[in-house]
């Protein structure tokens, strides 16, 4: 059997690399104010937003309840705060990361 050579190739998806430990401030969405404009999702450099169609998420009204909602995957969110800064409804709050234990 020929032993194949080792080439410097990276194959493993970075999704196996969690970056939650980078976070100092944690964004939290107040869903009852969220109009589902998805601007937070659009501007997230970390791809930490998932698009949820779950109906259990609180919503300001019936129209928005039918729309997809942004859900933060805290495994990846580094807490940069762009989402909170860009949110037109100001419904994302940057809170002090509570799980942090030093």
């Amino acid at each position, binding site marked *: 059997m020929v032993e194949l050579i080792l080439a*410097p*190739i*990276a194959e493993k998806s970075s999704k196996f690399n969690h970056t939650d430990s980078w976070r100092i401030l944690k964004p939290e969405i107040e869903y009852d104010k969220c109009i589902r404009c998805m601007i937070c999702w659009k501007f997230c450099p970390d791809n930490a937003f998932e698009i949820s169609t779950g109906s259990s998420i609180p919503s300001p009204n019936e129209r928005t309840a039918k729309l997809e909602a942004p859900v933060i995957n805290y495994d990846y969110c580094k807490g940069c705060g762009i989402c909170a800064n860009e949110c037109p409804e100001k419904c994302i709050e940057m809170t002090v990361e509570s799980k942090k234990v030093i």
Partner: protein
Amino acid sequence: MQSAQRKYNAILTGNDAVAVGAKLARVGFISAYPITPQTTIVEKLAEMVANREIQARYVEVESEHSALAATFASELAGIRSYTATSSHGLLYMHEMLHWTAGMRLPVVMSVVNRALGPPWNIWTEQTDTMNQKDTGWMQVYCESNQEALDTILMGYRIAESEKVMLPLMSMEDAFVLSHTSEPVSIPDQEEVDGFLPPLDLKFRIDTNNPMGYGSYSTPDGPFMELKKDMIESMKNSKNTIREVTRNFAEAFGRDYSGLIEEYAMDDADYALIASGTLASTGKYVVGKMREAGRKVGLIRLRFFRPFPDEEIVKATKNLKGVGVLDRSVSYGSSGSIANEVKSSLYEKSSIPVTGFVAGLGGRDVRIEEFEKMFDYIEKGKTGNYFIGDREGN
């Protein structure tokens, strides 16, 4: 009297022979930047592409760095790729040499050995490629136009071997080979196709299998292991080289005997180690000296990387003295080949080694100078000598 016409079917310059070699290897991608004395190789290939004698893309880049960058990328996309350069052009490629080897891409490149300035000098010298000995490329120094052609064919097969996967550069001495016409046997395309199967790069770029090619590694990442694998592959390539040259001899009847070639070595007491066309002239001188009853021989170094240390030890075993001829300079040390030979012999042999540096900047190394070198070797003069300068050495 032998008939040269029975053995050969064309008269070609070294550069034309190399271009024919690339054509027969069915290279699919060529990218190059002109530099004397390499230019006629790429001119010839451009002409072949223009006349559809070869199914290849030719990209006329704006620098040598780009020539090898484009070649590297094309090879990574799975196409057998080729480039050629010389001297300062090779130096300008230096970064890409490491990159191509590190990416384990079996590119074959022709290099016409030419001196480095200043002062500008277009004539032959091996300092340009000796400077690249640590880049992970195999290095072959050719002595004839036939070998220059054949080495392109053998080169791809060696480089593309799954046990090797390292690039290879094949050298011609500027003008003395590149622009010299000699009889050459051009093999049939079908025979070449039988010898050299198409490239099948296992990790070629494929959007269905997204990967990061090159990436980066921390000290704790696989960096050292990757380098170790290159070192091992380079070492193991010796077996592949021996095997491929043997297969080539079986297929085409021309035997290059592996990493070194021994000439008149059977009962020799003294020998000179040389490479390129100096080895060719050296053989002529050895022949004359043999006629005069002197028991001398010549070891022609074909491969400088991987370095044929075992072969050198074996070939010099029964000698009383050996000389090493370098057509290159390493400031503050001895000749590059001489250093490697001494290192190979260390603890394995007590034979005296004489180092010679000659023929810099294309200065002709004449018959009398070869005789002088053999005189030095026979007298057991160790150390390093500069031969053929105006101070009468």
